[in-house]
Structures are given as C-alpha cells and as structure tokens.
C-alpha cells in the first residue's frame, strides 16, 4: 500500500478561522491526509477516529516529547497509557461519577448557577461569554476539584496558560514562562490546602485522591488537578456559548426545547455541532494501515472529532444545528480509555442546570446580530464573544 496523500496547501490560519468546509471536502475526497502545516495525518471520518481511539496499544497517547510536560511540570494522565493511566484516572474518578454529581453536588451547582445567572443585568446587552460562561464554569470546577479558594480569575488564567503551554509546539520560551508562573501559584495553593482536604474529606477530587487507601504520588495528584483545570473550564464555557447561539439563532427549536424541556438533547447537539475539543493526537506504535493507506510507526495521527461529528455516514445535514435528531452518536467526549473524565459534570451542569435556568430567567433573550459572533479555533473551538440582550 501507499502512504496517505500529502497536502501542502491547508494552513493553520484557515483551520483556525473555519475548518468545517475543509473537513467536509476531506471526508469526501481524502479522509486520511498528511497535512504538512500541522505535521500530522488527519483522520476526518467517524469510523477512523473511533478506531484509533479505541485501540490504545497501536495508537498511544504517550508522547514523550509533548510540550505538555514542561507546561504542566509533569507527565499527566492524559499522555499515559495502560495500567499507569488507569491508576491515576481511577484515583480521581470517585469525585466525577454521575451519581456523585447528581446527589452530592447537584444542590451546590444549582446554587452557584443561580448566583451567577441572577447577577446578570436585565434589559442590557451583555457578553455572555465573558460574563457568565467562563466564570461559572471556573467556579463549578473549583468546587469539584476541591480548590474553591481559587478565584474565578485565577482559575481561568491558570487554565489558559496551561493550554497555551501545552500547545506550544514551537517551543518558544514565553508560553512556558507564563505556565511556570501559573504552576507556582497552583502549587502554592494546593500545598496550603492539603492538610485541610485530608482532615476534612469533602468528596472533591483533591480530597478523594489524598484520602485514598493507596494514594498516587503527590506529584501526580497535583498533575491530575492541573489537567482538570486545563481541560475543564474552556470546554463547558465554549459548549454553553455554542448551545445558546444555536438556540437563539433557531427560535423554532428553542420553543420546542422549552416545550419538551429537552435541554439535555440541546446540550448533546451543541457539542456535536461544534466540538469544544476538535482534535486529539495519537502516536503510532507499529507500522499499520488506516483507510487503505500505510501508516508508519512514529507517525502522529490526528483524530478530528469535529469532523467525525458531521460525518455524512452518521448524520443527516450534519452541518446544521438540529436538536431533534433521531440519533446523536457524536464523539465530542472522545472514545476509549481517555474518554472525557468530566463528561458527566459537563452534561449535568451545562445541560440540566445552567441552560434551563438561563432561559427561564430571561425568556426574551435575543441575539441581535448573529454576524457579530466570532468563532475561533482549530484544537479547541467555540465563539469568543456572545453579545445578547437579556430580557
């Protein structure tokens, strides 16, 4: 067999501005494509992205040269495989299960959401992205993780710096200097809170990891909290903004969602339509084949779940936001062992609590100019502003 075709035309700027027309073309013409500008082999069909993520022996998350290492000052669970990954993941999981979130955390989340929604001014134009989506996601996560002492501003700043450092494939010094500073601040806070979280178990991720029978090393406890900070704010923030946009630009669907109280469905459709994490990388451990092409050992493949989520094989009119699809087998939370650890939190907080509360409090909310909303991102994607009139 032959190597996959090589593309030297697609630029990162194009992908960052709007990757969807490109993905649509690739699904039809070149679902396995080496993209020179990204230095990765793009996989754009749902069957291929799933195959790769479900097969961690052949497609490893363990990239020894990832900029994530210096950015997090640790080799995090997201970049580990097998037993090692499982052990660290399980250490945190008791804080993140559906039941835990429903029964123990539910009332707190309701309270936090009510607080943040009710302080929004009525009758004015408000950028929901900066005024609600980001801060509320940060506050909820701070509680889940067991670091509510951190401010919304700190949580968001740390998150962004970790992400920027982890994506610093050019290995420039400034992003690492910024993530170092964030790491210093986080390490200091975690250190200060340690004794308290150990002495007074509260079900938060930090407390659960500290009090386990056979705890993982302290360095990995810190690393796990950091990966959740890096991976747990921007995605629910972007998901919320995307769904509100989708509903406000489709008033007939909004009416039906209200009538049926189908907020959970609206959540699933929002993350399908514009996946907050659009792509993930995997390192190829053995010579293999995908979609009829040779994939050599050492290659890095990129599973583009953003594209899988609009695959014509699975979705009718996938380019459109349509809440009431028969089936919605999207891959926005990934597949396989690295399936999102925060999926249940995101579903409950955004889908079951925040969305209904927001539309209940502001039944006449409007998006006066959908064209003013700017969408950005290749690795992560969502609106970066959402000017709505609240009424």
């Amino acid at each position: 067999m032959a190597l996959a075709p090589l593309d030297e035309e697609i630029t990162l700027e194009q992908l960052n501005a709007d990757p969807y027309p490109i993905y649509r073309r690739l699904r039809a013409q070149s679902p396995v494509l080496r993209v020179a500008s990204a230095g990765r082999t793009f996989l754009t069909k749902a069957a291929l992205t799933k195959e790769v993520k479900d097969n961690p022996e052949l497609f490893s998350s363990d990239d020894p040269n990832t900029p994530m290492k210096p950015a997090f000052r640790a080799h995090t669970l997201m970049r580990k495989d097998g037993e090692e990954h499982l052990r660290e993941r399980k250490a945190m999981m008791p804080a993140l299960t559906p039941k835990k979130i429903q029964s123990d955390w539910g009332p707190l989340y309701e309270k936090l959401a009510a607080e943040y929604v009710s302080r929004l001014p009525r009758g004015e134009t408000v950028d929901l992205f900066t005024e609600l989506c980001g801060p509320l996601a940060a506050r909820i996560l701070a509680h889940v993780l067991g670091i509510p002492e951190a401010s919304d501003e700190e949580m968001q700043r740390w998150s962004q710096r970790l992400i920027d450092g982890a994506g610093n494939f050019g290995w420039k010094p400034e992003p690492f200097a910024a993530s170092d500073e964030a790491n210093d601040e986080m390490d200091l806070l975690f250190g200060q809170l340690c004794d308290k979280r150990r002495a007074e178990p509260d079900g938060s991720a930090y407390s659960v990891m500290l009090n386990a029978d056979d705890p993982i090393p302290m360095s990995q406890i810190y690393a796990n909290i950091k990966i959740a900070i890096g991976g747990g704010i921007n995605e629910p923030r972007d998901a919320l903004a995307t769904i509100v946009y989708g509903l406000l630009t489709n008033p007939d669907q909004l009416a039906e969602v209200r009538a049926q109280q189908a907020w959970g469905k609206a959540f699933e459709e929002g993350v399908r339509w514009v996946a907050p994490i659009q792509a993930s990388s995997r390192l190829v451990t053995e010579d293999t084949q995908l979609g009829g092409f040779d994939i050599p050992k050492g290659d890095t493949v990129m599973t583009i779940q953003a594209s899988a989520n609009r695959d014509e094989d699975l979705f009718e009119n996938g380019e459109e936001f349509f809440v009431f699809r028969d089936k919605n087998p999207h891959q926005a939370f990934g597949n396989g062992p690295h399936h999102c650890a925060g999926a249940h939190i995101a579903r409950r907080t955004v889908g079951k609590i925040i969305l209904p509360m927001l539309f209940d409090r502001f039944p006449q909310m409007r998006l006066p100019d959908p064209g003013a909303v700017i969408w950005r991102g290749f690795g992560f994607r969502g609106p970066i502003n959402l000017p709505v009139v609240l009424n």
Partner: protein
Amino acid sequence: MVKVTYVAHDGTQTTVEAEDGDSVMHAAVSNDVDGIVGECGGSMMCATCHCYVDEAWQDRVGPRSDGEEDMLEGAACEVNDRSRLSCQIKLGADLDGLVVHLPEEQF
C-alpha cells in the same frame, strides 16, 4: 450467533443476533439499540452502559469483573444486585437468549 433481548425502560423489547465473544454493550451499540450508550467503547471509563440482568439469567452471567464495581457505583440510575456494566458481559453460547433490562437514563 447469540440472541440477546434488551428491554427498554418503557417496556419496548429489541432482540439482536450478536457474534460469539461480542459484549452486551457492543452488540447493542452496533445494532442501534436505544438506552445503551457505551461512549468509552468498553474501557470502563464512562458508566453509560449500565444494565440490569434479568433475574432468570443472573447466575449464568456471573459476577462483576475486576474494577467494574467502582465505575458501576457511579451510574446515573439506581444500582442494585442485578446491575452490570454491559461492556463487561461477554457473549457466548451459554448466554444465548440472554435478557437484560435498561435503566431510564445513562447520564
């Protein structure tokens, strides 16, 4: 081939023919059975393939697998002594005709 019947929360029954060695989760997902999500593909990471084994089949299906308990405990709906993660039930001739019941929701 092994027959499996899924009884949805509203009582709807769906019977599928699965391959020997397939899991109850995978057989459902590949035959478009509603009520089992199985998002993580069987890695015991998502707790969205919870099912209740029919009483008549409980003995034959056997005990929960290593590590299943922890994840199962976190499932969205009530967990009882018939609860399993369906990704951990492997089908074989001994389970031909298996009946499982599905919870109201998986997340």
